[in-house]
């Protein structure tokens, strides 16, 4: 049991990585990247 629990931190790291990158990768609603001046105005 202790062995499995010891994998928990690693599992959460992977989950957080996927979730965060999924959130960052979603089109639109994420905070605009602002690569070019005009784009941020959302048109």
């Amino acid at each position: 049991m202790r062995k499995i629990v010891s994998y928990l931190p690693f599992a959460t790291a992977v989950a957080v990585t996927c979730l965060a990158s999924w959130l960052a990768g979603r089109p639109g609603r994420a905070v605009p990247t602002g690569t070019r001046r005009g784009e941020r105005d959302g048109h």
Partner: protein
Amino acid sequence: MTVRDDASQTDVRMDDDPRLRPEREAVVGSAGRRRGPGRGERLMVPRAEFRSYYGLPVLNEPTWEAHDIAGYLFLGGLAGASSTLAAAAELTGRPHLARAGKVGAVCALGGSMYALIHDLGRPERFVNMLRVLKVTSPMSVGTWILTVYGPQAGLAALTSVTGRFPRLGRIAALGAALTGPAVATYTAVLVSDTAVPVWHDAHRELPLLFAGSAVASAGALGLLAAPLEETGPARRAVLVGVVTEYAAAKLMERRLGPLVAEPLKRGRGGLLMRLGEALSLTGALVSQTAGRRSRGAAALAGAAVLAGSICVRFGVFQAGMASARDPKYTVEPQRARLGEESHP
């Protein structure tokens, strides 16, 4: 009275004559037999099969925790490759994929930092890693690489998420992209630079395996996280990564030879390697077919490849443990090597 060789050595003498043989020159079995040709040792016919000390390991098993170090192998690879993919995506106009890659890289890097520090016997002394720079120590070189790569990846992610200082972000992303591959592959050198037979003898193919696995996992993350239209490069990365990974694994096993590669085929190491390859291949297949069209399928494929990559990393790690545990993996190849040298 000179000290003749044999009889007079046990004379009673008051001077401590240096030619008297001290106790460390005692030879067991040298006396007591009729003076004639002593029956020396009957030479044992050198037996072919392998000998050991009660079957105990020759090496001390690595003290690393699987979930920390094997985990780091995966996360390190993911971080490095994701940064590079992200930068490439940014240059080719795929903002969402880029941002996903950057954020993914920094999260993976966070996980790596946790794993590395958690595995230390004295975590509070982790800063000692920067005490010196030793080119002979992959871990020392690796730490310095991480020190260079880390801030850049962090900055890149931060700027891309907050949108501020975009120019600085771009430079940071570029920097991270250039050091990313080093982060992904130095771990192979770290593992190979040990006496563990399966790791050491695979030092030519392991970097390739780790690179392929890193590319595949970065691509997979891209598939998972980025919108479908931007996942072109991710999909191709998955394909190339998985193929390279599989090829490197097969090449490695062939070079190691049947005995040393055994931990990669049998036991926990073997199981994980096969599972990893299976997951990766199916993931790649799905990504090239269904993954093109449906977002769900792409995500699924990405997850499969990620899992596959994790399994491969853990598989290589467990194989190393098994290889250190059984003395025959150390003794027989060395005995063979000695055999070749003595009569090539």
